[in-house]
C-alpha cells in the first residue's frame, strides 16, 4: 500500500511535536525513521495508527484521503502498529490474545484461528505455542505474536516503534529477515529507530526528524556522519572548561551490575569526585536512568557496590532515605509525578524539605522561609501557590530551592527539558554554584549540547553498555551522536587506555 503524509501537524500545548511533516512511502519498501528522543517519531506514527488525531494535515492511502480516528480504524484501513512495549495481554493465552482484535460473532472461532495462527507462524518460521500464556514469552516472541496478529487482521502497512530494544541478537536477525520477506511480498514497513546500525542494515531509505520537523531523507548507501548531523544538528563551538583539580571522592560505583526491566548493566565503574559534573548520554531507556536511580538508592544493584564519601561507606542495600541523610539529592524528570506534590503549596513543600522540629507547624516562620526562597530562586509564584499552577521552569526552580544545603551529590534527570533559554541558564547557574562549593552533579540529558557544555566527564549508554568516562573537552557532538547510536564503540577501548 502506498502511504502518503501531507503536512501533518500536531501540537501538545505549546510544543509542536509534528510540524508540517510530509513524505510518502511506496509499497514493498522498508522506510527507516530516525530521530533523537522527542524528535516527533512516535507522535507521527501514533497519528498514522489512529492513537492521535492530527491538528492539521492529511493521510493518503493509495492516493485516497482517509480519516483515521482510532486504532481500530487504522487496522480496518490495513495499518498495524507494533509498539515499543508490545500492547498485548500478558495474563491471556497466546491464542486468545491473537483473536481479541478480530471482529465477528459472539463466540470466537478458536479452532479456525489456531489453524490460521499455525500456518502464519510456519510461514515465518516462528515457534510459539498458541496454548501458552503471553507472559511466558520473551519480548521477541511477543513481537512475533503481534506481527502475526496484525497480519491476520489484514495489515498491509506495518509500523514498528523501536522494535530492536530488549530483544536478543538472534531474535533481531529473525525479525529483520521477516520484515525483508514481508516487504518483498508488497508490505509497506515503517521502521522507527534511533539505532543507526539497524536502519543501515535493514532499511531501503531513511527519513530523519528533529524537533518535530522532517530534516531530510537519504537513500543507501547511508552516510553515517551526515545522518548523525541531521539527527543532532550542527556542532556548536564549545568554550573550553577550566581544568578541574581532582576533589575527594563523593560516590564510588564499584563494578556495579544492575538489572532493569528490559536493560542490564554489567560491571560499571565510576568514581565521582567533589565539584565535578558528569553527564550521562544515551537514548532514553539505554540504562542511564537505571544507573542514576541506583546512585540514589532507589534501585539496588545485583552485583558490585556503591560507596559514599571519602571514608568509603558501603551503601549497598541501604534505602534512598539513608542516601539522602548522607547528602545525596535526587531530582527526577517527572516533576509533578515524582518530585513535587500537586495540591500542596510552595510553603508546604518548603516545610517538608526542612528539618522539622516540634509538633506544630509555625505558619508565620514557614511563610517567611518560603518568601525568602522564592525571591532567592526567582520563582514566579506566591507562598500559597500550588506547585501544579507553576510553569515547568518555575517548578524546576522550586525543586532546586527545595534542595538542602550543603549537599555532597546531586542527581538530576533532564535538568532543563522543556524549559526556555532563560530558565535553562538560570538552572545551570544555580547548579554550578553548588559545584563551586564542592557538590558533585551527575545528570542525564538527551540534549547533546547540554551534555558537552556542562559536563566535565561523560558516560554514554547504549542498550545497557556503558563507555568509560570520556573527557567532555575532547568530545564532539558528532562523536557523541555516533556513540549514542551504537557506532564507534570498538575504538573506545584503545582510547580509554590513553585517557
Amino acid at each position, binding site marked *: 500500500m502506498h502511504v502518503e503524509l501531507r503536512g501533518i501537524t500536531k501540537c501538545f500545548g505549546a510544543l509542536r511535536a509534528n510540524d508540517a511533516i510530509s513524505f510518502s512511502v511506496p509499497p514493498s519498501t522498508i522506510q527507516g525513521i530516525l530521530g533523537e528522543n522527542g524528535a516527533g517519531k512516535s507522535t507521527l506514527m501514533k497519528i498514522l495508527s489512529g492513537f492521535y488525531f492530527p491538528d492539521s494535515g492529511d493521510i493518503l492511502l493509495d492516493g485516497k484521503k482517509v480519516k483515521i480516528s482510532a486504532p481500530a480504524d487504522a487496522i480496518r484501513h490495513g495499518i498495524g502498529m507494533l509498539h515499543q512495549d508490545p500492547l498485548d495481554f500478558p495474563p491471556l493465552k497466546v491464542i486468545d490474545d491473537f483473536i481479541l482484535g478480530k471482529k465477528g460473532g459472539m463466540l470466537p472461532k478458536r479452532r479456525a484461528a489456531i489453524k490460521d495462527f499455525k500456518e502464519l507462524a510456519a510461514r515465518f518460521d516462528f515457534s510459539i505455542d498458541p496454548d501458552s500464556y503471553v507472559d511466558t514469552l520473551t519480548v521477541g516472541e511477543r513481537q512475533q505474536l503481534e506481527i502475526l496478529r496484525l497480519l491476520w487482521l489484514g495489515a498491509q502497512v506495518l509500523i514498528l516503534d523501536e522494535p530492536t530494544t530488549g530483544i536478543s541478537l538472534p531474535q533481531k536477525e529473525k525479525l529483520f529477515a521477516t520484515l525483508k520477506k514481508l516487504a518483498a511480498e508488497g508490505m509497506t514497513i515503517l521502521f522507527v529507530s534511533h539505532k543507526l546500525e539497524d536502519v543501515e542494515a535493514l532499511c531501503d531509505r531513511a527519513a530523519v526528524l528533529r524537533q518535530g520537523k522532517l530534516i531530510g531523507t537519504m537513500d543507501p548507501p547511508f552516510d553515517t556522519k551526515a545522518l548523525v548531523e541531521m539527527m543532532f544538528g550542527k556542532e556548536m563551538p564549545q568554550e573550553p572548561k577550566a581544568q578541574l583539580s581532582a576533589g575527594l571522592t563523593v560516590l564510588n560505583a564499584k563494578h556495579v551490575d544492575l538489572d532493569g526491566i528490559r536493560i542490564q548493566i554489567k560491571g560499571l565503574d565510576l568514581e565521582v569526585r567533589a565539584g565535578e559534573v558528569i553527564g550521562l548520554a544515551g537514548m532514553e531507556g539505554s540504562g542511564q536512568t537505571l544507573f542514576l536511580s541506583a546512585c540514589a538508592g532507589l534501585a539496588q544493584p545485583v552485583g558490585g557496590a556503591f560507596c559514599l564519601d571519602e571514608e568509603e561507606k558501603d551503601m549497598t542495600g541501604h534505602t534512598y532515605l539513608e542516601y539522602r541523610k548522607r547528602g545525596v539529592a535526587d531530582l527526577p524528570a517527572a516533576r509533578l509525578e*515524582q*518530585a*513535587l506534590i*500537586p495540591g500542596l503549596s510552595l510553603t*508546604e*513543600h518548603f516545610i*517538608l524539605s526542612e528539618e522539622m522540629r516540634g509538633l506544630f*507547624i509555625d505558619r508565620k516562620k514557614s511563610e517567611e522561609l518560603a518568601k525568602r526562597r522564592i525571591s532567592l530562586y526567582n520563582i514566579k509564584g506566591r507562598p500559597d501557590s500550588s506547585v501544579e499552577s507553576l510553569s515547568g521552569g518555575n517548578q524546576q526552580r522550586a525543586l532546586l530551592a527545595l534542595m538542602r544545603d550543603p549537599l555532597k551529590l546531586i542527581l538530576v534527570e533532564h535538568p532543563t527539558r522543556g524549559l526556555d533559554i532563560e530558565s535553562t541558564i538560570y538552572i545551570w547557574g544555580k547548579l554550578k554554584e553548588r559545584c563551586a562549593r564542592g557538590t558533585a552533579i551527575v545528570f542525564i540529558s538527551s540534549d547533546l549540547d547540554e551534555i558537552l557544555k556542562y559536563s566535565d566527564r561523560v558516560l554514554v549508554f547504549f542498550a545497557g553498555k556503558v563507555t568509560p568516562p570520556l573527557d567532555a573537552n575532547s568530545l564532539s557532538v558528532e562523536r557523541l551522536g555516533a556513540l549514542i547510536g551504537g557506532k564507534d564503540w570498538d575504538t573506545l577501548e584503545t582510547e580509554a587506555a590513553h585517557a
Partner: protein
Amino acid sequence: MRDTRSTRILFQIGAIIFALFITTIVLFAANAQPFAAYKYIALGAVGSWDVISNVLVSWVPLLLATSGLLVTFTVGLWNIGIEGQITLGAIFTTWAMRLLETSGWNPTLILVIAMAAGMLGGTLWALLAGALKTFGGVNEIFGGLGLNFVATALNIWLIFGPWKRPGVASMSGTLPFDRSLWMPIAAGSSRLTPATIVIAIVGILAVYAMIEGTYFGLKLKAVGKNPKSAYILGIPTWQHMMLSFAICGVFAGLAGGVQVTAVYHRLIPSISSGYGYLGLMVAMLVGYRASIAAPVALFFAALNVGSIQLPIILKLDSSLAGVLQGTLVLFVILGQGVRAKLLKKSKVTP
C-alpha cells in the same frame, strides 16, 4: 466557569436538591406521602428532648469513626475495614469488662481500662489491615473487607460460645453488665452519656489540629497526594501509612467501646451498627475536611434516628434514611466530578 467558593457551594446545594428529588421519587414509588415522611423524620430527630438525646447517642460513634477515617483518607487509604476495627474495639472492651466486673475496683477505673482495651483492639485490627497492605501487597479495601467478615464471625462465636448467657445463647447478645458499670447517664435523660460526647468532641478537635497544624499531618497529606514525591522529599512512606492505620484504629476502637459501655451495655452481634460504613460516607461528603465533619455527622445521625419513625407511623421501611444518605453522597461526589470537568473544559477553551 471559575473555581470560586460560590460555585462550590452552588454545586453542593444542587446536590442536596437532587438527592431530595430522587428520594421523593422513591417515596412516591412506595406509595407514601413524601412530605409527611420528611416531616416525621424531622420530628423524629428533633421533636423532643428524648429523640434529640437519641441523635446524640448515635452521633458519638459515628463522629468517632469519621474522625479516624479522616486520618486514613488524608494519607490516601480507603480503610473500609473500620467496621471490623469497631467490632474488635467492642470485643476488647467487653473482654476487659468481663475480667474486671467482679474485681470490686472503682467503676470509673474499670471503664477507663475497658475503653483503653477497646482502643487497643481497634488498633491491632487496623494494623493487621495495614500490615497486609504494606508487607503482603493486599489492597486495604480487600484486606479490610475480609477482616470485617472475620471480626463479625469472631464476635458471633464469642456471643454464642465462650461468652454466652447462662443457660441459653441468644441473638440479643451477652449478659448485660451491672448498672454500676454503665457509662454514667446524664440526669433527666434515659441514655445520654456526657463523657462519650466529650470524647467525640475532643477526638475530632484533635484530628483537626493534627491534620491542619502539625508536621505529622502535613506529611500525611504529602504521602496521600503523591507517595512517590513524598518519598523523594524524605518522608518514610509506608511508616506513615501504618501510623495512620493505627490512629484510625484507636478511634474505631473507641467507637466500639462506646457502643458496649454507653449504648448496649453488653456485646451484641451487630455491635458496630454500620457506623463504619456511614462514617465513610460522612468523610466523603465533607471532602475529607475535618472542620465540617461534626455537623454533617450530626445530620446523618439525625436522619438515622428520625427515620425510625417511618415504620412506626407510616408503616414504611426505615431504610429510607439509607436511601437519602446514599443519594446525598452520590450527588455531592457527582457534583464535584462535574464541576472538575467543567473547570478543566473552561481552562482548555478560555
